[in-house]
């Protein structure tokens, strides 16, 4: 499904996309289970990284629409109170919209790509409140998120095998540039 020939791709912005046929096949899937899982991940991230709220500042109540260009659904995300919705079509009353591929989105969340570089290469499109988007980008970049860690924590006693499987998946999507450590 994914291919990653250039190990520096995650940093340079040339990341793989989901094949259109697979995206079409995903369209009938129910969104609620995904929404429940991702809502749990969001809650956990915000609980473990309260500095995100400091960096979001006055934009902590902003509603962000995130549209992965290679998926048949999108996300509506709010930090305070933490809410995440999975929808087929983004509502109109959002503060800001962010469009990019799923792989770029994941790489951005983990700080593996530079948001400005994605803008320069036109792999990232933003609309709406640019100040809120910048605050979000900087808050996430500073949080040093580890998505494998966050997702695998939801699997309880199966966390260890889940972590292994998710780490392998991340390796295929984003390459070997992952870094650990906190401030």
């Amino acid at each position, binding site marked *: 499904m994914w291919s990653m020939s250039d190990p*520096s791709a*995650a*940093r*340079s*912005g*040339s990341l793989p996309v989901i094949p259109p046929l697979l995206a079409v096949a995903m369209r009938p899937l129910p969104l609620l289970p995904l929404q429940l899982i991702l809502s749990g991940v969001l809650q956990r991230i915000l609980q473990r990284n309260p500095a995100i709220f*400091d*960096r*979001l*500042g006055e*934009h902590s109540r902003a509603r962000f629409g995130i549209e992965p260009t290679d998926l048949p659904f999108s996300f509506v995300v709010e930090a305070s109170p933490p809410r995440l919705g999975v929808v087929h079509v983004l509502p109109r009353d959002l503060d800001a919209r962010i469009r990019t591929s799923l792989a770029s989105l994941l*790489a951005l969340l983990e*700080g*593996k*790509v*530079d*948001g*400005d*570089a994605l*803008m*320069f*290469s*036109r792999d990232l*499109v*933003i*609309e709406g409140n*640019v*100040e*809120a*988007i*910048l*605050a*979000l*980008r*900087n*808050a996430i*970049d*500073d*949080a*040093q998120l580890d998505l494998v860690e966050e997702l695998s924590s939801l699997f309880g006693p199966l966390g260890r095998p889940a972590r292994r499987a998710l780490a392998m998946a991340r390796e295929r999507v984003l390459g070997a540039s992952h*870094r650990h*450590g906190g*401030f």
Partner: protein
Amino acid sequence: MELICPAGTPAALKSAIEAGADAIYCGFNDETNARNFPGLNFSRDEMRRGIALAHRSGAKVLVAINTFPRAGGVDLWHRAVDDAVSAGADALILADIGLMDYAARRHPNQRLHVSVQAAAANPDAIAFYVEAFGARRVVLPRVLSVPEIAEITREAACETEVFVFGGLCVMAEGRCSLSSYATGKSPNMQGVCSPASHVVYQQTPQGTNSRLGGFTINRFGPDEPAGYPTLCKGRFSTELGTGYIFEDPVSLDATTLLKGLRDAGVTALKIEGRQRGRAYVDSVVRHFRGALDALAGGREADIASLKPFTEGQASTVGAYRKTWK
């Protein structure tokens, strides 16, 4: 030559250290520094912890307090100086002569650097900062050629630092009012050039329109590389045609000029980009660490292109290789 690297967040500071920075420059999260962007910069506590982490790793931290104090509001800048000193900053990067005076009198043992925002571009101007305030280093504007830098460095009474990568400001820094004209806010006073609060991106069938303070300053075609929404890099239509009046969207990359800068006597090389993410900091710092190590070892640098990180996906050596007068 010292490698001076940007950090807009504590995480970026850590990335810069791990990537081989000799020193990191950063600022407080208010209008006292010229990168006062939303969600960026350091609280007092983060600054203290960041400096401690850098010192444990053998790196220095230079605190940028390089905007010009507001009339009636100078206390904010004085507090920034005092807090940076008490946090253990290795140097303060200052632009305003009143603030330089305050820092020199209040903290006579504190190392002071003259910010690029001071636009000190000749030996006489530099001598003033050295004689009046004991400045130890000057960051030179990005409008000088390498031979000019060599000449200034030879005559300067302090160390010189030059930019080697990142945003290429072609104006007299600290004097430019383009952002202020369009938005009422400037890097000199509020610490923001083309503030995000005044930027609008509109998606149209013809491409992306970027607007600043109500002015349309560019339209990028669907697959055309884009740049920052700054007036100096705007593309304008006039009766003579459509094009970039001041400069194309492009980033400075002086990798190929490192030997010339070393021979010119430059002490430190600065990477622009406190507003950029950890991925930028990590890759660009590693690139220049490798290039400097290769230069020191007399080897050819085997370095990857930094093109993906450049504005407009293009780079230039700018005025360093000046072909005009």
